[in-house]
């Protein structure tokens, strides 16, 4: 098991390294930092632009391989280079990753837990009213892009606030600008702001999980071991939860790894629309500013999170299915 895990981790590290390098090379070859400086007012001279680009290791007149080597040397020492404004990228990664991870983790836990519960219950009540309603609802939600859900919820919140005459639902920023309060008040303020974006992210995940879990649950409900469990005297509830649901969760654990990548890019829209300064919003801004080092750093973050989700789903799998624990 230890050797297996070590090999897995090594493979993941190689994949993350390659993905980040590829993103860097692609960004360095396709983005245009020179144009960013040349468009400044008043237009700087060529020599000034060159000096600035050289200082940032972004000069397109330096060979790409040489720029890559310089950047890689920095990354090896934990330095992801500078943003196009000349600030250090590395410290910003931590704050922005924190914002994104808070949002995504809470939404993932809520969305998948609710989805699994509803999907499993719908399978038990196949073709009853609950099943029909939840299946139709998840089908509908899956047909609406996250962008549209996010904007729709925001418009709804604005309308509701207008009707009520005060701000019941916050839809912009992580906390009230200039808010000054003790730890508890600040926390409450943050939670208040996080309600809508978390809901938006969780809803899409909920629908995907409910749909998937219903199918896997239906597969095991007819299985002999569930009947055996009930025959040996377990209550229906116990047999369903301990024997059927646990088995039906195994494929869902694998599915989790695939949805997490979608989740991280879904967070991009939510952050951007709700004015959160996380990784996704940073990526969009950096692309429009031709900020190569930020693009590479965000790609590295995304690759690491996808790998972590994949590792987590492997661990979940091993926990749920004793057969792989050899």
């Amino acid at each position: 098991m230890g050797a297996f895990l070590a090999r897995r981790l090594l493979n993941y590290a190689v994949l993350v390294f390659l993905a980040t390098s590829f993103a860097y090379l692609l960004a360095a070859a396709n983005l245009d930092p020179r144009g960013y400086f040349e468009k400044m007012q008043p237009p700087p001279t060529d020599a000034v632009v060159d000096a600035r680009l050289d200082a940032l290791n972004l000069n397109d007149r330096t060979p790409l391989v040489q720029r890559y080597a310089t950047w890689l040397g920095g990354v090896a020492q934990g330095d992801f280079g500078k943003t196009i404004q000349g600030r250090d990228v590395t410290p910003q990664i931590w704050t922005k990753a924190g914002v994104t991870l808070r949002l995504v983790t809470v939404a993932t836990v809520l969305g998948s837990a609710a989805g699994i519960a509803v999907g499993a219950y719908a399978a038990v009540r196949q073709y009853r009213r609950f099943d029909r309603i939840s299946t139709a609802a998840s089908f509908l939600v899956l047909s609406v892009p996250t962008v549209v859900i996010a904007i729709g919820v925001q418009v709804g919140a604005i309308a509701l606030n207008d009707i009520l005459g005060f701000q019941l639902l916050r839809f912009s920023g992580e906390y009230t600008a200039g808010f000054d309060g003790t730890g508890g008040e600040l926390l409450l303020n943050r939670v208040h702001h996080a309600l809508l974006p978390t809901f938006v992210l969780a809803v899409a995940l909920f629908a995907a999980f409910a749909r998937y879990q219903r199918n896997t649950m239906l597969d095991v409900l007819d299985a002999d071991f569930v009947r055996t469990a009930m025959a040996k005297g377990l209550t229906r509830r116990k047999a369903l939860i301990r024997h059927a649901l646990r088995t039906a969760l195994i494929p869902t654990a694998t599915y989790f790894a695939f949805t997490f990548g979608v989740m991280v890019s879904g967070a991009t829209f939510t952050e951007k629309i709700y004015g959160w300064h996380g990784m996704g919003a940073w990526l969009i801004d950096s692309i429009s500013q031709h900020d190569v080092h930020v693009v590479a750093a965000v790609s590295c973050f995304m690759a690491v999170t996808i790998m972590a989700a994949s590792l987590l789903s492997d661990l979940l799998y091993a926990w749920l299915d004793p057969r792989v624990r050899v």
Partner: protein
Amino acid sequence: MSTTETRAEPAGTPAETPAAPAPPRRIRDVGRRLLATPRVVAGLSLLALLVAAALLGPLLSGWEVGERDYTALLEGPSAEHWAGTNRTGQDVFTQSTAGLRTSMLIGLLVALLSTAVAALVGSFAGYLGRSADRALMWIADLLLVLPGFVVLAILSRHFAGAGGWFVLAVLLSAFSWMVTSKMVRGATVSLREREYVRAARFMGVPPYRIVLRHILPHMSSLLIADATIAVSTAVIGETALSYFGLGVQAPDISLGVVIADGARFATTAWWMFLFPTALLVVLVLAVNMIGDGLRDALDPQSVSRRPRRKQR
């Protein structure tokens, strides 16, 4: 022996040939089953309406795509402009239906390309095994880790200019075949040792022909259903990219572009957001309904078609 006898007989006595033609009957069966599913019928009719809207919409409205009506800036729906105008006086109905056409084309192209790549990569990896399998699946893993969204965003300036949507569609497919290819690989591994595949192999049929003639047709139903779902995924992906201005670029127009334009006015000029969004949601819903029904009709082990169990 019987085959040689049949072959020896002159053509023109079809009554003698023993086997009834199997494939047409299957297609007819599936067709009947599909038409008996209300979801599929609803999805197909919605899709037909949308195709008609995409093809005829810009012709019927009386406005050209991109044409500006300076006498009606940011006005609500009227007899002149069926779905209102945006802030530069463009007819929202014309823009949306023209955008719908591009979005549909992108969805269709991505589904075809990504399913073809997934089928080839997955089946060859599964059939050949060993180093070929490891190499192909490693590439799939790498592409799964590489955030496709980032790569598409970096390359977005290449989508500008006429026909840029084609480049976008090709790139979208390059990042959407991996999961299906893993599924195909799994199915191929279990087919590899079937008697008919072995028989072909021992007769000396080359691997590529075994894959194309014996393995891929066996999972055609899985691929068809998957391709349908891929259409809606691609349409959603295109909208998402275009929302940030990183997808389809002017002069091309897609639903995502129109929605992004309207999103900023969602509270003040609702028609600019509501009309294209409704078209998009109906399109994705219709495609999903057809895909779901296809999966049920084509896959005998499908879950949702299973008869209701007795309550215990």
